[in-house]
C-alpha cells in the first residue's frame, strides 16, 4: 500500500494496463504535454507520443476515431476534458459505440474508455461543472463508472480498460487532490460491485463519486445525533449492484440517495424506482433524494456552494425521516 492521490492512482492503473497490453493507448486534448488535470502526464513520460496522443480540439474526432480504432482491434482510452462536452460526442458515443455490438448481432466489440471530468466546486460555471452520468446511463450498451477514492479509481480504471464494452469513467475534479491508501501493483476491481464505505444500521445513504465523501461527512454528523448511517458507494451505475442496495435496506429500512447531478431524471430517480418496485416491503419511511436543484451550475461561489449538496443537507434529509 502507498498513499496516492486520485489522479496519481488513475495514472498508476493506466500505466500498468499499458504495460500489460500494447494495444492500449491514450488519446485526447493535451493528454501528453499538458493534461488539464495532470493525470496522463506520467503515462506520456513512460510511453511517449505514439501511445499517448495529443489531438486537436476535435471532440467528435477523438470519440469517433476511438470507435473505429476499437472496432479494428485497439483499446483506446479517450479523454474528454470536461463532461459538459458529452453533448459534442453524443452521436459517436451513444449512436455508434453503444449500439454497434447489438446492431451488428454481437459480431463486433468496441472496447474503449472515455475518461471525463465532472462536477462543480471550482467556480468553473455552467459549461464546465456538470454531472451528466444520467445521459450515459440512459443508453443501453454503455457502462458507467464513478469512483470516489484513489484505490477504487485505480482498480476500476484497470477494469474499464479490460472491459470489451464502451465505458464512461467519470472523475470528479475535486477528487483529484484527495489522497488514500492504494494497493501496489496490479489491482483490478469488478465492475458492478458497490462498496460499503461505512457500515451502519439506521439508514442507508446511497451515493457515488464525490458525494460519497459528503455522505461520509454527514454520517459523522449523524453519529453525534445518535444515528448510525451506512454509506453505500455504488461505484458503478451501469451495471448496477441492486443486490447491495436491497441487502443494505434489509438492515436499515431507510433510504437517502445523494447525487450532485440535478434532480429531475437523475440516476437517483432510477434507484428510488427500483427500490419502490423490488424493496417496497423493506422500507419504513419514504425515500429521500438529496441532489442539486434543477438549475444550471452557477458561477458565484455563494450560489455554487448552495447548488452542491453538502453534509448538512444530507444530515437534514436523514433526520427528516424520523
Amino acid at each position, binding site marked *: 500500500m502507498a498513499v496516492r492521490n486520485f489522479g496519481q492512482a488513475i495514472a498508476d492503473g493506466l500505466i500498468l494496463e499499458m504495460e500489460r497490453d500494447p494495444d492500449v493507448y491514450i488519446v485526447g486534448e493535451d493528454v501528453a504535454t499538458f493534461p488539464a488535470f495532470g493525470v496522463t502526464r506520467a503515462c506520456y513520460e513512460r510511453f511517449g507520443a505514439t501511445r499517448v496522443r495529443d489531438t486537436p480540439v476535435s471532440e467528435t474526432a477523438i470519440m469517433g476515431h476511438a470507435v*473505429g480504432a476499437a472496432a479494428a482491434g485497439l483499446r483506446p482510452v479517450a479523454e474528454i476534458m470536461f463532461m459538459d462536452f458529452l453533448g459534442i460526442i453524443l452521436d459517436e458515443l451513444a449512436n455508434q459505440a453503444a449500439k454497434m*455490438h447489438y446492431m451488428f448481432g454481437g459480431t463486433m466489440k468496441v472496447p474503449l474508455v472515455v475518461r471525463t471530468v465532472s462536477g462543480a466546486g471550482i467556480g468553473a460555471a455552467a459549461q464546465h461543472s456538470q454531472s451528466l452520468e444520467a445521459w450515459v446511463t440512459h443508453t443501453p*450498451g454503455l457502462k458507467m463508472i464513478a469512483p470516489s477514492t484513489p484505490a477504487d479509481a485505480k482498480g476500476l480504471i484497470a477494469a474499464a480498460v479490460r472491459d470489451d464494452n464502451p465505458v464512461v469513467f467519470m472523475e470528479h475534479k475535486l477528487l483529484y487532490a484527495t489522497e488514500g491508501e492504494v494497493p501496489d501493483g496490479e489491482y483490478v476491481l469488478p465492475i458492478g460491485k458497490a462498496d460499503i464505505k461505512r457500515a451502519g444500521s439506521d439508514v442507508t445513504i446511497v451515493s457515488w463519486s464525490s458525494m460519497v465523501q459528503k455522505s461520509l461527512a454527514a454520517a459523522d454528523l449523524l453519529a453525534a445525533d445518535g444515528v448510525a448511517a451506512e454509506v453505500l458507494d455504488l461505484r458503478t451505475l451501469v451495471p448496477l449492484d441492486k443486490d447491495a442496495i436491497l441487502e443494505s435496506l434489509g438492515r436499515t429500512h431507510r433510504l437517502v440517495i445523494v447525487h450532485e447531478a440535478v434532480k429531475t431524471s437523475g440516476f437517483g430517480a432510477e434507484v428510488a424506482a427500483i427500490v419502490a418496485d423490488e424493496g417496497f416491503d423493506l422500507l419504513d419511511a419514504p425515500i429521500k433524494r438529496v441532489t442539486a436543484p434543477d438549475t444550471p451550475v452557477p458561477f458565484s461561489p455563494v450560489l455554487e456552494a448552495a447548488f452542491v449538496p453538502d453534509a448538512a443537507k444530507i444530515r437534514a434529509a436523514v433526520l427528516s425521516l424520523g
Partner: protein
Amino acid sequence: MAVERDQLLDMYRCMVKIREFENRAHDLFLAGGLPGFLHLYSGQEAVAAGVMATLRPDDLIASTHRGHGHVIAKGGDVRLMLAEILGRATGYCKGKGGSMHIAAIELGILGANGVVGASIPIGVGAALACQYKDGDRVSVTFFGDGASNRGTFHEALNLASIWDLPAVFICENNLYGVGFCQRDHMRPCDVAERAAGYGFPGIVVDGNDAEAVYEATATAVARARAGGGPTMVECKTWRHHGHFVGDQALYRDPAEHAEWLARDPLLLCAKVLASRGWADEGALLAIQDEIRAEIEEAVAFALASPQPALSDLLTDVYSD
C-alpha cells in the same frame, strides 16, 4: 496502374452482382416484404467495384446508409445480406441491424451507418489501428457529397492528415443529399478540393468509369500503404433511383437523369470490354445469368430463413 482483362471482368461481374441484388431488394420492398428504409446503390456500382478491386481482404472499410454495394464488393455473402435486410435470424447481424447496419468484421467491413458522416471518423480510427499495428493495411472510408458538410468530415480529415494515417477517403458524389442539390448545399462543388485544406491530395474522377476509379484509388492505396498518408478520391456519379425506395426524385431534372442513365456504369464497362475484345456479348450475358441465379438462390435462402427468436431481443447489448 493499368487494368488488365481479368481485373476488369471481375469488376464487371461485381457491378452486375450489385445491380441484380438491388433490383431484387427493390422488388421485395415493393412487394411489402422488407421493413425500414432501403437506399439503393444502383448507378454507383463502378465506385464500389473499382475501389474494392484495389484492396486486400485484410484492408478495412467504413460504409454508409447506401452501403449494399460496398459490402458485396468487399466479398459479402449475398445470402446473409438479403437475410439481414429481411430481418431474419440468419442475417449478418441476426436481423438486428437491417439494410443500414450491415457489418462483417471478418471481411474488414466495419459497418454501414445510419448517421450521415459518422463513418468518417470511424474510418480514420480504423486507419490508426492499421498504422499502430505496424502493418501495411489501409482503411477506406466511403461518404456522400451530403456527408462532406458534417463536422465529422472536417475533424476526421484533419486528424488523418496530422497523423499521416493510411486512410483513403472515397467521396461518392451523386450530386444530391436527399433532395438537396449539391450546387446549392456546398461550395466549391468538387469535394476533393477540400482535401487541400487539410494538406493532402484530392482528385476527381468519373465515378461511372470503374477503370478510372480503380486507377485513382490504386494510387491512393499505394501511397497510404507506403506511409504517405491520406488521399481523397471524389467519384462523380448518380443514383438511378430516388433517395430511398418510395422517393420519386421529382427534384431532379429529367434531362440530366437521362444523360446519366445513358452513362450507366455497367453499359460503359461492357463497351470497354467489347471494344478491347476482352469479352463478347455472350460472355457478358453468361455472367448476368450466373449472377441472377445466385441472387435468386439468396432470395430463396433469405425468405426461408427463420425470424429471430424473441429472446434475441435481450442479447448482445453488452459483450462479455
